[in-house]
């Protein structure tokens, strides 16, 4: 089970002008946890006719590419003066419009290879399917268009309660004036719907020049509607929680069972037969009347032996 450390940048595009350079630059700027992202658009069922169905059956998981990893040698790390051990994760961003598309279930195995799964909801139906479906989604990445603002607020709030995190990228603010306005509108929309909780900030960097120093990013978040602590948490503790929840989802539900054993060579007066006798013992012990000696137990023992309850040989009480 991996855990995120330090500042996190959970979206560096794999379709990058120079992926290794971007990762090394992010690490040298101060980010310690990085996720390399690949975008996948699952085709909808309407477009596919009978011919395409055959093709789809042949290549099930081929829509979802293999996770991309980056090998960093210690010489690279030294060149960029990186001393702390980096944590590099893989992430996939899925977008699809048709909830009745079979591709999601078919490529479920391929999707599970990734450490983080992100999802772009195009409409209410897909959002609902993902929230209740078999695919565990960790991050919701919203596109700032009119369809997003019509998403049901109750669904967004319920996804928040399920520990799903919303992502706001900051590199569109750097590149394009139009995109900057859209990102600000999106962040204000999130502020209005869910009080800007569960928000993580990522870079969505397509080249090394889109990355910024972490404390600068914290400063920008103030303009996106987050408070000072929330903006620091957005690249810090919220991102850690997102990675932790993601790895917990991969592992599945944790269960534990409790077994109570009373050791056989314990003092006679400490053995209880049933809950009622245990309660009586505790009452008398608390008032201080009871002294743990063999002489007293005979006289002051108020515990009645109930023969109906079974006691095992080893002393395990069966309820």
């Amino acid at each position, binding site marked *: 089970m991996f855990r995120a450390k330090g500042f996190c940048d959970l979206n560096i595009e794999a379709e990058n002008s120079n992926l290794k350079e971007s990762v090394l630059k992010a*690490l040298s700027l*101060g980010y310690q946890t990085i996720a390399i992202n690949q975008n996948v658009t699952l085709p909808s069922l309407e477009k596919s006719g009978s011919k395409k169905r055959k093709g789809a059956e042949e290549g099930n998981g081929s829509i979802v590419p293999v996770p991309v990893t980056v090998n960093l040698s210690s010489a690279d790390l030294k060149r960029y003066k990186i001393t*702390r051990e980096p944590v590099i994760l893989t992430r996939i961003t899925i977008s699809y419009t048709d909830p009745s598309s079979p591709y999601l279930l078919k490529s479920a195995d391929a999707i599970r290879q990734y450490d983080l799964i992100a999802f772009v909801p195009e409409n209410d139906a897909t959002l609902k399917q993902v929230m209740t479906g078999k695919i565990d989604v960790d991050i919701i990445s919203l596109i700032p268009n009119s369809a997003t603002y019509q998403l049901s607020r109750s669904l967004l709030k319920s996804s928040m309660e399920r520990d799903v995190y919303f992502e706001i990228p900051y590199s569109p603010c750097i590149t394009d004036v139009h995109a900057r306005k859209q990102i600000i509108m999106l962040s204000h929309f999130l502020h209005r719907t869910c009080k800007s909780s569960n928000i993580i900030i990522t870079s969505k960097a397509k080249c090394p*020049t889109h990355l910024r120093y972490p*404390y*600068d*990013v914290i*400063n*920008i978040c103030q303009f996106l509607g987050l408070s000072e602590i929330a903006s620091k948490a957005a690249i810090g503790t919220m991102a850690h929680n997102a990675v932790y929840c993601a790895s917990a989802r991969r592992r599945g539900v944790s269960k534990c069972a409790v077994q109570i054993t009373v050791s056989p060579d314990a003092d006679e007066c400490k053995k209880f037969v049933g809950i009622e006798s245990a309660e009586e013992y505790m009452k008398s012990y608390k008032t201080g009347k009871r002294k743990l000696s063999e002489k007293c137990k005979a006289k002051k023992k108020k515990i009645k032996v109930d023969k109906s309850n079974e006691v095992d040989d080893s002393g395990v009480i069966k309820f």
Partner: protein
Amino acid sequence: MKELECRNWYMRVVMEYDQKILPCSMTASLVKFFMKSAITTLFGEISSAFPLDILKFDEESKEVIIRVPKDNYAKVRAALTLCSATMLEGAIIPIIYTVEQASSCLISLDGPQKQLA
């Protein structure tokens, strides 16, 4: 002890640019012009009318130490972060600003620096 009101914030900014693309060599007044145009792009003319002083400009290491009023600090820092390029004589010059240290006292910039990486 009495509380002093710090009216100004100081920042140490490191610039990344390619000298070959520039039509002339970088000077302090050019740096001031670039920074003001970055603030104007993001926040408008009223925010860029606040005083911005360039205390020190080192051409070799491309470090600048600037002073801004306290109320304008967050805006200046955000404008410098979100700026990707500036226009000069018709040419688009890509510049990246990184604010390495910021403090309300100038002496703090001489102190030990935070090691992140």
